[in-house]
């Protein structure tokens, strides 16, 4: 079977193969430990990707780091490969059908970094698999107790919601917030000149209940959704920005969002795409769910 056939009809979950991009930065051990925790939790194969040839000493360091996380040698693999960093990592993920790529990332980008692009962000903009960005990796990783998922009005959202339910169940999360990000840029101008405040509020309330109803319909179709404590919120504002503000105030352990429809370019940074607001300043661990073969 070729790659396309293997990916056809494949859901974004379960995470059977988890990869982690490795550099020997001061935080590399913490990033590997985060990936190893997920690998154990999901019983997934772990792939450590290093771009550039590893010395024996470096390989030993990586092996020792993984093994301290109680992962046996047969359950992980180290791939060192030469090439340009971003395309090489993406290629390895593609060839190994990686379900989740874990990356350590800066919490905030400077203006220059935002436009030039750091490695983690560049991968997030182009990846064809789900990406987990960890701005603050812990030496003793914690479970994701509080999970937030963005339920923006998009064809990709049902799969992202299903992934959120899957992750929340696997993590035994205490709370799953399902947040409808609603953006109606013309609302004020459409209704401002000829309706009273009460009418506008009533229209907004109708709109919010309609949004919640749609999400409940989707949730009812997702297996395992009833076994977790879910809370629904409807927030108004620019998608990406409004969920970032929400996440900053709620401080969840994990935020899940849809992957972009296409690879993001410089135009999407000049006229910001939803995801760019999150990439510019990560409010917490961010899981960008790629809808794979769908």
């Amino acid at each position: 079977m070729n790659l396309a056939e293997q990916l056809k009809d494949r859901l974004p979950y379960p995470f059977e193969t988890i990869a982690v991009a490795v550099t020997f930065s001061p935080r590399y051990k913490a990033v590997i430990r985060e990936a190893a925790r997920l690998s154990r939790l999901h019983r997934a194969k772990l792939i450590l990707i290093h771009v550039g040839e590893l010395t024996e000493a470096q390989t030993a360091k990586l092996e020792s780091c993984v093994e301290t996380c109680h992962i046996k040698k047969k359950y992980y693999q180290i791939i060192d490969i030469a090439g340009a960093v971003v395309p090489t990592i993406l290629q390895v993920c593609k060839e190994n059908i990686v379900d989740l790529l874990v990356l350590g990332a800066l919490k905030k980008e400077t203006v220059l970094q935002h436009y030039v692009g750091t490695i983690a962000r560049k991968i997030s903009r182009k990846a064809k698999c789900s990406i987990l960005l960890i701005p603050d990796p812990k030496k003793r990783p914690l479970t994701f107790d509080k999970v937030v998922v963005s339920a923006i009005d998009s064809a990709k959202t049902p799969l992202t919601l299903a992934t959120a339910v899957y992750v929340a169940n696997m993590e035994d999360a205490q709370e799953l917030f399902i947040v409808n990000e609603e953006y109606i840029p013309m609302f004020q101008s459409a209704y401002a000149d000829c309706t009273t405040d009460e009418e506008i509020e009533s229209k907004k309330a109708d709109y919010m209940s309609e949004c919640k109803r749609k999400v409940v319909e989707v949730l009812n179709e997702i297996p395992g959704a009833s076994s977790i404590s879910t809370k629904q919120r409807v927030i108004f504002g620019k998608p990406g920005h409004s969920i970032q503000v929400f996440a900053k105030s709620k401080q969840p352990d994990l935020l899940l969002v849809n992957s972009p429809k296409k690879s993001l370019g410089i135009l999407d940074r000049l006229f910001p795409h939803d995801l760019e607001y999150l990439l510019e300043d990560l409010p917490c661990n961010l899981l960008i769910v790629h809808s794979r073969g769908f």
Partner: protein
Amino acid sequence: MVKLGHHDMIVFLLGLGSILIIARLFAELFKQFKLPSVLGEIVAGVILGPSVLGFFWPESFEYLFPFIAHPEFTSTIPVQYAMDAMINISVIMLLFVAGMEVQLPLVIEQGKVALSTTFFSMLIPIAVGYLGVQLVPDLFMVTNRDVAIVGFFIGVVLSITALPVIARILMDMKLFKTRIGMTIIASAMLIDLLGWLIFSVILSVIEQGEEQTSLTYTMTAILVFGVFMLTIGSRLIDKSLPWVQTKFSWPGGVLALSFGLCFLGAAFTESIGIHSILGAFIVGIAFGDSANLRDRTREIIHQFVTNVFAPIFFVSIGLYVNFVDNFNFPLIAVLLILAYSSKILGAHVGARIGGLNKVDSWAVGVAMNTHGVLEIILGSLAMAAGLINEEVFVAIVVLVVVSIITSAPMLKRIVNK
């Protein structure tokens, strides 16, 4: 310093007060019939102006608006200046608010279908408008020298879609978030931007005539200004807004910043030979694009402009133009035929090429043929620049009214099929 005299102040304030109160009454009346308040405001102007009040009760008209009834009297000149300044400020603010509705990321997200719909729903109406004026120049009362430019202008008027009007129709019909809805909104936004750019170039050409160097300088300057404001400028505004909204008194701080930037942008474009409205419009886009602009702030700016400044402009249309004398039925009929055929067909073709199915493409075509406030502003500015006469302007206003009344029922008919 030249000041308005005691009597001038009374005349000015009397006129302004009457305009605002009568406009509100008519706006509320039109609301009862589910029509946009702007139509009520235009009708208020027609009733207060030479068409009705000036015709049936000329003494009352002269008492309320002596500066309109007798513009030739030197004693009315200071009030004429004051009123002209008020109307200009109103138009600048209206364009600023119109710019705030344009969301370029939304246009980019819609991609091919929005671009294709925009392209054809501008190209075909502009071509039809241009050819229409070439074929019947007498009907549009243009001299041979102006035929091309008037044709181009009429084409631009036919190509523009009224964003707030169609947004409301789509929201009421629960179509706003659908693919049809997003295509219409994204295309209408892009058309707004391109339409104003083209119109500003037309005005610039009229004012600068054959001066090629000056025109090249103007075009380069506006391009640099536009690119700067829509990229770096909008990011700077976005970054400064959280600080302004928390450190300054609210909403005073952000209102001062927004209108201050609006007037500076308007002053800049005016100084480079492009009408001030384009500067206000571009600053509006940069400002409205900010994710940090609170919904409440947006609402306050909108309320302030639509309820105080917009009525001054829309009532003034009826005050200065005699709608009865300038009602030219053949011209109106031709304009309506050109508008309906070209815009519906153009948007339909664009949406179809962009990937929508046949029914959805007709829905996009019909919805895009909704004209509104911006066409009236375009018309009044063109009339002030001497590009069109009052009869053509009245025909544009009638086109706007008819399209607003007909677009919702037509769209419902197609969608319910």
